[in-house]
């Protein structure tokens, strides 16, 4: 396993008391595998991403294990952690405008991690590598001399990708990497990410609220709700044939293009995600759930293998869902 979360819990201490953002996540990414993480804003998916390189604010209490190549990131000393940052795992941040330093040239920002991590590399060699990376992500090498504001949103996101690849990491985390882009540019950038993942064999953990983005790029997908994984399985299947009412609602929220019926009645989900300070008893999705049964209000469901439609009630080990209804083989949509 390249990356493994074991019972990861993140709690923010705030003025309103303790705020659990991630509540016991077990998740794994294999080398060369692409894992998508979906969920609404505030479900804890970005916290998960930032936890990997320990970039969370000081107010966050983190427990559990995050193993990168078998080494627990949460137990590392600062020196080792700095060495692992960007070489073991790197991040393509959301909102590339603010994630780049506005007063530094692009080339220097891409070359910076190379110079930090490879003591033997000269600045000139690092600059040449930065230019090569820019060309790889489809920008002219001369762009190295530009400032971030001189680029378009899509170009900046390409720069972020080039920067993330600078130290040849084993794992790349893309946190809403294409969210701010328009659809055409988004498609190009997704195409680029998919290419690079195959070409370099890096593991990719892609975080997005947009299911179409995840199903286009990812092998596997996990759906998060209120700080927990509620469903996991092969990406296409999770979204086409959800085994948790929340993932079903999430898929239905994106109308099918060309289907007039879907356009007239976009299947949104009523209500808001629960307040993390006052989570409901039992299943945290119950207040918004259309198929809830009595048991859902009393017990919190575990993430268990679930039978898939057409498999005659036999549980498929690749599909797990934290829903009592799905675990009994019942349909999760009305």
């Amino acid at each position, binding site marked *: 396993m390249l990356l493994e979360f074991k019972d990861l819990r993140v709690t923010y201490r705030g003025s309103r008391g303790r705020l659990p953002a991630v509540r016991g996540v077990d998740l794994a990414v294999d080398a060369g595998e692409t894992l998508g993480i979906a969920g609404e804003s505030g479900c804890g998916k970005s916290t998960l991403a*930032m936890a990997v*390189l320990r*970039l969370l604010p000081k107010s966050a209490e983190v427990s559990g294990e995050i193993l990168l190549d078998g080494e627990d990131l949460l137990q590392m000393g600062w020196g080792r952690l*700095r*060495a*692992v*940052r*960007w*070489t073991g795992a*790197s*991040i393509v*941040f959301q*909102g590339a405008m*603010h*994630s*780049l*330093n*506005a*007063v*530094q040239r692009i080339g220097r920002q891409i070359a*910076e*991690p190379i110079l*930090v*991590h490879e003591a033997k590399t000269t600045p000139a060699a690092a600059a040449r590598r930065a230019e090569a990376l820019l060309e790889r992500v489809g920008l002219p090498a001369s762009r190295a001399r530009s*400032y971030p*504001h*001189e680029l378009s949103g899509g170009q900046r996101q390409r720069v972020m990708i080039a*920067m993330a690849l600078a130290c040849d990491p084993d794992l790349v985390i893309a946190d809403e990497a294409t969210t701010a882009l328009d659809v055409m540019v988004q498609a190009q950038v997704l195409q680029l990410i998919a290419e690079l993942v195959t070409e370099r064999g890096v593991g990719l953990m892609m975080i997005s609220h947009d299911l179409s983005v995840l199903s286009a790029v990812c092998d596997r997908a996990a759906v998060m709700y209120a700080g927990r994984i509620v469903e996991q399985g092969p990406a296409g299947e999770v979204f086409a044939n959800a085994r948790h009412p929340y993932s079903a609602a999430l898929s239905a929220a994106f109308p099918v293009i060309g289907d007039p019926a879907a356009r007239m009645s976009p299947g949104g989900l009523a209500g808001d995600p629960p307040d993390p300070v006052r989570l409901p008893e039992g299943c945290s999705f119950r207040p918004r759930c259309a198929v809830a049964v009595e048991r859902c209000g009393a017990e919190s469901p575990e993430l268990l293998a679930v039978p898939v439609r057409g498999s005659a009630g036999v549980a498929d080990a690749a599909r797990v869902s934290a829903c009592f209804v799905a675990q009994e083989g019942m349909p999760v949509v009305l």
Partner: protein
Amino acid sequence: MTDAPPPADGASTEAPSAGRAQSRRSPRDVNEHGERRVSSGFGRYLLKHAGGAAVSLLLVLFSSFFIFRLIAGDPIDQLTKERPVSPEQRAAMRAELGLDQPLWQQFWDYIAGTLTMDLGESFQYRRPIFDLIVERLPATLLLSGTGMVLAVVLGFWIGTRSGWKQGSRFDRGHVATGLVLYSAPTFWLGMIVILVFARYLGLFPVNGMRSPSTPPDFWSQAVDIGYHLVLPVLTYTAVVYAGYLMIMRSSILDEIGSDYLTTARAKGLRDDEVRQKHAVPNALLPTVTLVFLALGSVVNGSIVTETVFSWPGLGTLFVNSIFYPDRPVLQALFVLFSSSTILAVLCAEILYWFIDPRIRRS
């Protein structure tokens, strides 16, 4: 306020002067934006800001003439003080000082004179004001220049570290110390400094810029001036550095939650590298104007300090001229002080073009 006419005169002439400045400004602006098309972005940027500075300078020039005619009464009364003077003598003095001319003639002489560096003659020294300023300028530049550089460097250094570790003991201690010194009156702090370092400890001279007994060779003179410089510079720096500390601190605080700092951390940079390579360059941008304003006030920034330490600079000259009152000197110094600030701001704007790549776009 025995003489009613001069203030009334001054007041009546001020309104048209403001009107003239107004009418002068509008065709200028039209010129810059409409007729004169400058192809390069920098040319237009420079012209726009230089035009603004020129308008400000003109306003300073006009107002200086009238302000000091409003606040200082009839100079002949002040020059003769309580001595009995015959009307003939008064008339002769008026003629000698050029005060018998009509106001518009005096105004014209003043404008033409100032523009050609002929600043007139001082009432109290009976010497060309230009010479007086040239004599005293180096002493002022030495004192407040040294103090300003020290204050900026010290303030920025502490401010950066204070903001980076907001709420730490370093932060709280330095902010408290800085603000106490900042709010201390300069003359009071100066006297404390004199009391402690000159009177009790006897380490440094009390006043002046050099001792008469020092040999005339360059090095002895330099050492002697440096020795005299310590206490005034100490006082001056202590009073102003907290301003730079607070500005730099809040500028760092503005940057501290920024995403690009998270990127820098994720890349594996050490905390001090994140601060120095990423946070500080961004935080310095908004302080450039401030530094240049500071440079502009090097000429007039140390009036009180100079007075406390009898430093032979422009500040002492200014204070003496107020007490005399020496209207031509005040007038000239007012123009000098204001124009140095205006020019410094202009320099800051020009520099922005080169250091902040975002300005070139707009």
